[in-house]
């Protein structure tokens, strides 16, 4: 299945292409028709779905795999996020997983032979009160105990990095911040493209414009999928459709501890480089970075009500912009050129689910809230491990579907079963 003719991206292939009229470029993946059956069918051609397919083929030797996508690859939340990666978590169930993801990011481009523009420019979480400082000290210590980098900065060290923040703000004074230097940003679309190209080369069929309309279950076992391109039989089925997990699970008769919510993001006109890293404002909920093209990319809270609309309301826009201007008043002079909304799988404890379901052969990857993008490599790695071996990967062992019934919640924010507050 692997085509040896594929060009490996390198300096020499770039030079060769430049000297030969750029005729060496090829499509990144095939456009196959679905075969009647596969060993594994993954639903959802986003970051998590194609990453899972890639690691199934590469790490477990399972390449008789199809990824079904109802639209085009990367058309969902992987193209609708603010591109931030980090592993600055507090709870023991989360830190090893997100740190594993960070380690995979660090080697991703060499592994995929694809430039995903991984940029470890650092993420700084600002604190504004004594209580918040205490919370960040605790978080930083938890991170360091797990071998993750974390530095507590005082006000003057923050000022040296970002002199244009509003340090004179009487209501939300900046007292310092928790810095993770290995955090940063990644070109979000390129992550899907890189994984898709690499999975395709290992024989995975990436089937676009193929919407799943039903999950066939016989004697308690999932046996295949009804799709807009006909019935596809599968020995194992993995759902990686965050945003729409409840709708897919309902096709198999399952109800999930998840609500779908809309989260908006914003890009301004291009500016000269002003913001070297990723910064979060601790007095509200606001996060910002500057893309390589120069636009400021930022976001904040959910709109707060159930939604599948991929667009939000002005109340959330106003709230986000108020947070931004409180942090860096210069934002008030910059024009927003684009806004959009993505649909989030908000789980009941704010943490994801990577687990088997009560139906044999049906596996679930869901509940990513708004932390799905940074998790893409580890999510694919751990979901592939689960599907291939029927055992959870050690770093994702806490992400069980039954933790809500057993009380082993992973509530990073400590707000309880209220999805719009996570």
């Amino acid at each position, binding site marked *: 299945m692997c085509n040896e003719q594929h060009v490996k991206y390198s300096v020499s292939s770039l030079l060769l292409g430049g000297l030969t009229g750029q005729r060496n470029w090829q499509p990144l993946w095939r456009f196959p028709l679905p075969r009647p059956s596969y060993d594994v069918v993954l639903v959802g051609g986003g970051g998590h779905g194609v990453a899972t397919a890639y690691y199934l083929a590469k790490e477990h030797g399972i390449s008789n795999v199809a990824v079904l996508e109802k639209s085009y690859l990367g058309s969902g939340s992987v193209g609708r996020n603010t591109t931030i990666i980090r592993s600055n978590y507090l709870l023991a169930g989360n830190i090893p997983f997100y740190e594993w993801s960070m380690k995979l990011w660090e080697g991703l481009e060499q592994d995929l032979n694809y430039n995903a523009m991984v940029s470890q420019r650092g993420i700084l979480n600002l604190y504004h009160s004594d209580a918040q400082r205490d919370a960040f000290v605790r978080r930083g210590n938890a991170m360091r105990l797990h071998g993750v980098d974390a530095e507590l900065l005082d006000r003057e060290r923050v000022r040296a990095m970002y002199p244009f923040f509003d340090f004179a703000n009487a209501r939300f004074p900046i007292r310092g911040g928790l810095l993770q230097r290995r955090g940063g940003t990644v070109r979000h679309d390129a992550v899907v493209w890189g994984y898709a190209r690499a999975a395709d080369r290992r024989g995975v069929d990436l089937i676009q414009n193929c919407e799943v309309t039903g999950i066939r279950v016989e004697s308690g076992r999932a046996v295949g999928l009804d799709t807009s391109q006909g019935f596809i039989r599968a020995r194992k089925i993995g759902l990686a459709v965050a945003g*729409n997990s*409840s*709708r897919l699970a*309902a096709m198999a008769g399952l*109800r*999930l*501890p*998840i*609500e*779908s919510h809309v989260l908006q993001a914003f890009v301004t006109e291009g500016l000269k480089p002003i913001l070297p890293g990723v910064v979060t404002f601790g007095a509200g909920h606001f996060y910002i970075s500057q893309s390589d093209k120069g636009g400021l990319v930022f976001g904040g809270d959910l709109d*707060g*009500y*159930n*939604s*599948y*609309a991929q*667009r*939000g*309301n*002005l*109340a959330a*826009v106003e709230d986000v912009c108020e947070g931004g201007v409180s942090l860096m008043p210069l934002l008030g002079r910059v024009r927003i050129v684009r806004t959009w909304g993505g649909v989030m799988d908000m789980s*009941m404890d704010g943490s994801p689910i990577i687990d088997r379901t009560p139906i044999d052969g049906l596996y679930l990857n869901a509940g990513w809230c708004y932390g799905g993008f940074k998790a893409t490599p580890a999510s694919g790695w751990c979901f592939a491990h689960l599907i291939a071996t029927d055992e959870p990967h050690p770093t994702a062992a806490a992400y069980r579907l039954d933790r*809500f*019934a057993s009380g082993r919640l992973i509530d990073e924010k400590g707000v309880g*079963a*209220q*999805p*719009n507050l996570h």
Partner: protein
Amino acid sequence: MPIMRIPCPCCGERDAREFTYFGDGSVSRPEASAIDTCARFYEYVYLRDNPAGLHRELWYHGSGCHAWLVVCRDTLTHEVHSAIRAADPPITSQS
């Protein structure tokens, strides 16, 4: 970008930012004395239908009459179809 407005039965049609969203209004608290209380509370607290389409949900009019409302809203379009006071008996034969 449309603004979501909720027709409050007490105050008339008001901007959604006057209200606080609570969540699914179709789940009901189980009896504490039932035999399968644990299983029922698990479903009540955690499991949701999460429909793409019409959704019955609870909103609190904190900047208005302080009433809890049951709002029927489309999660695909954000169109609000109806709002009644949660204290009132539900309308059974509505569209």
